[in-house]
């Protein structure tokens, strides 16, 4: 087109090219440094938390406690009761009793009112919970405030309404609750995962024994306080805190008619093995290694934003993180340059600062795992880019990292890193993109960026993943079912589809 090549008018004194002798680059310097903008709300964290069983806070029978630290400062924030198998058994008994005497007999419309109440109470204390979540887990306050906590409330609100409408969710067959459900959740979205588990379980009439992750128990126990305020019948929801052994006890208990687990594929398989031969129902929401696929006709700046959001949201501690970028060869260089500029303005640091984009890595162990995998990327010959942002002196922090020159055989292209590390691969044709995207044991999510509508639907059809984000990424909603294909697990959470996993057809 002539407009694309037209020369600037000649007769003028100003010149078009101000700097012709060097490659133009932008300066993301410190001309306008932002002052710290710390969130100041009180998270109201107690120095010590007990187990929550039968509607009461009770001491662990062993008398043992473990420390919960703030990963941004490495300072202790609270002491958490360590539940033994006996404590877990107590919790199950309380849950069974609640199921038999109150919750299992209550009409759906009444159950729903309790669940609505929970949603409202979370909204009332949203900021306090957001701050507690950030202090306990290290995620940026911006995310806990704008995503985790509102989404938690939304999940309870959404599911509350289903309690008396299950005949419409599961047409043609009457259903009944399963009974008591054992649930184990991860540390990446402590409150939200709790909501994903508890909201559908109790709305459908089940009682719950839930174990939060050992590094992030605080908000679950604050949530227990809120359940007391909601006057939820004792035993409907019970929290047992601890590490792997406690989790194993939760999964193994005979009272549990179903177990639900969110976590790594490795642990998921262990649980599946341990339950082999039992009649427990299971749902598993496991790991991922999502491909985010960018075609050359995509809206590139929005794609950059989606890729950044896909991998650096919550420090990359997201099972559906878009950790593999597949970019079409013709735009690969340009796209990676855009990406590098974009991550140069990400702010890494104090999670409590309202301007922080990337907070603290959840634990030292996780930081070490990330470092180890990044090291393998370097050793296997991929090219690493990290912006030169400052990191705080204390706490567990990691710079956003991009690897280019990654091939399918690199560990960073196949293993779930669960950190802010992006592997960039290229493709030439749609078929190659699909082949590379599906070349994984996982199948949780995928992203597609293109301006062509029919190609979006083609890609969505071909990609073996439970969630496909087209021209967007990392979007969640209580009404939208979430869950994986293949080794990313089975069962769905959220939406109408998530409900059937918590009832039995009669």
């Amino acid at each position, binding site marked *: *087109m*002539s*407009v*694309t090549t*037209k020369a*600037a*008018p000649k*007769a*003028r*004194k*100003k*010149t*078009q*090219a*101000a*700097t*012709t002798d*060097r*490659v*133009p*680059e*932008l*300066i*993301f*310097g*410190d*001309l*306008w*440094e*932002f*002052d*710290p*903008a710390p969130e100041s709300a009180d998270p109201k964290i107690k120095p010590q938390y007990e187990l929550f069983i039968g509607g009461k806070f009770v001491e662990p029978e062993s008398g043992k406690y473990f420390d919960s630290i703030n990963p941004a400062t490495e300072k202790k924030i609270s002491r958490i009761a360590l539940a033994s198998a006996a404590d877990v058994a107590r919790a199950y008994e309380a849950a069974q009793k609640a199921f038999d005497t109150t919750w299992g007999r209550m009409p759906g419309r009444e159950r729903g009112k309790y669940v609505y109440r929970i949603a409202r109470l979370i909204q009332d204390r949203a900021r306090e919970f957001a701050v507690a979540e950030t202090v306990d887990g290290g995620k940026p306050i*911006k995310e806990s405030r*704008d995503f985790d906590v509102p989404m938690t409330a939304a999940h309870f609100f959404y599911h509350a309404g289903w309690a008396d409408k299950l005949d419409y969710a599961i047409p043609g067959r009457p259903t009944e609750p399963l009974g008591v459900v054992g649930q184990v959740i991860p540390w990446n979205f402590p409150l939200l995962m709790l909501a994903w588990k508890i909201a559908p379980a109790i709305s459908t009439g089940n009682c719950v024994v839930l174990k939060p992750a050992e590094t992030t128990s605080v908000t679950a126990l604050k949530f227990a306080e809120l359940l007391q305020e909601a006057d939820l019948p004792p035993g409907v929801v019970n929290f047992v805190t601890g590490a792997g052994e406690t989790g194993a006890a939760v999964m193994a208990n005979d009272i549990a008619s179903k177990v639900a687990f969110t976590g790594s594929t490795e642990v998921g398989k262990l649980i599946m093995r341990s339950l082999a031969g039992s009649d427990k129902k299971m749902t598993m929401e496991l790991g991922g290694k999502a491909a985010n696929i960018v075609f050359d*006709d*995509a*809206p*590139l*700046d*929005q*794609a950059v*934003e*989606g890729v950044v959001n896909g991998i650096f949201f919550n420090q990359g501690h997201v099972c559906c993180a878009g950790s593999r970028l597949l970019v079409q060869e013709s735009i690969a260089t340009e796209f990676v*340059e855009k990406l590098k500029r974009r991550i140069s*303005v990400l702010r890494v640091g104090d999670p409590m600062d*309202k*301007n922080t984009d990337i907070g603290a890595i959840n634990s030292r162990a996780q930081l070490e795992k990330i470092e180890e995998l990044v090291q393998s990327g370097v050793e296997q010959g991929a090219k690493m880019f990290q912006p030169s942002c400052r990191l705080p002196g204390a706490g567990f922090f990691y710079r956003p990292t991009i690897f280019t020159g990654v091939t399918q055989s690199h560990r960073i292209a196949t293993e779930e890193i669960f950190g802010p590390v992006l592997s960039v691969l290229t493709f030439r044709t749609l078929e190659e993109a699909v082949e590379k995207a599906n070349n994984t044991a996982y199948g949780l999510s995928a992203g597609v960026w293109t*301006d062509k509508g029919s190609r979006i639907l083609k890609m969505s059809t071909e990609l073996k993943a439970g969630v496909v984000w087209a*021209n*967007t990424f990392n979007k969640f909603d209580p009404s939208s079912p979430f869950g994986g294909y293949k080794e990313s697990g089975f069962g769905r959470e959220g939406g109408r589809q998530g409900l059937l996993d918590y009832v039995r057809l009669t």
Partner: protein
Amino acid sequence: MMQSRRTSSLDRFIADVGPVDQVGIEERAAKFTTRSIKKGSKLWGLKTAVSMVDLTTLEGKDTPGKIASLCQKARAPSSDPEVPSVAAVCIYPFLVKHARKLLADTSIKVASVATSFPSGQLPLKLRLQEVRQAVSDGADEVDMVINRGLFLSGELDAVQDEIAAVVEACGESTLKVILEVSELETYDNIRAASMLAMRVLRADDFIKTSTGKASGSATLANTQVMLEAIRDFYLATGTPIGMKPAGGIRTAKQALHYLVAVKETLGDAWLNNTRYRFGASALLNDLLRQIEKQKTGAYQAPYYFSEASASY
């Protein structure tokens, strides 16, 4: 040959410069509003914003007297000597001579809208004559409007030729090209129009969102589309183009959000008034009010500030 559709040249041009996704760009823009600018950084931002204001009056009832008070406000927005003067006054061509005299001893620019502002619906010859008149009357800067009708009907060469002609007519004066984004209807079109204009502009000429006379005006999202176009154009050609959002920016808080977008999209080299302007009238008072609040710690009543929008 197949008969091309009426707007196919625009479609092809959009494909060439790349599309914009509406939901994505609006999400990006919303993120700027979550930045929390406090203390020293807030004060710096507010003062920098003052220095970027094109203090504007574009009313049918404007008089030399109104221009005099506008120029006074432009020279010394505040009694506080730390508060800079604004970047420019932006007025109709008829009043350029008056402003030129009043601002002769300052670095404040006289900007004049021209080219049959705000519709642009005069023959090109007359529009160019208007530009030359404004420049010869002493306008340092000319704010032109593009022909949106031509653009939307796909007459891109014609639109670009007109801009090029105005560039010539400007001589050494800086040109700001108003895209009137709300009439362009889509973000795709805003990006395309930005690229179309920039290809015939000179270093430190501007592209500008709006006349302030149409139903819509600057938003963070449409400004972001233009910032990203400026960035892509600069990285491809080395020619830095300035940005001027205009209309609808009334509060200091909004201005800070716009500046955050500049900082994170174009970087430090655009955080000055040779590359960034606010086309606004009411904004200046709120900036001054917030500067005073930052310094004293007390919230300020609007009537301490001249030409306050609210007088009670």
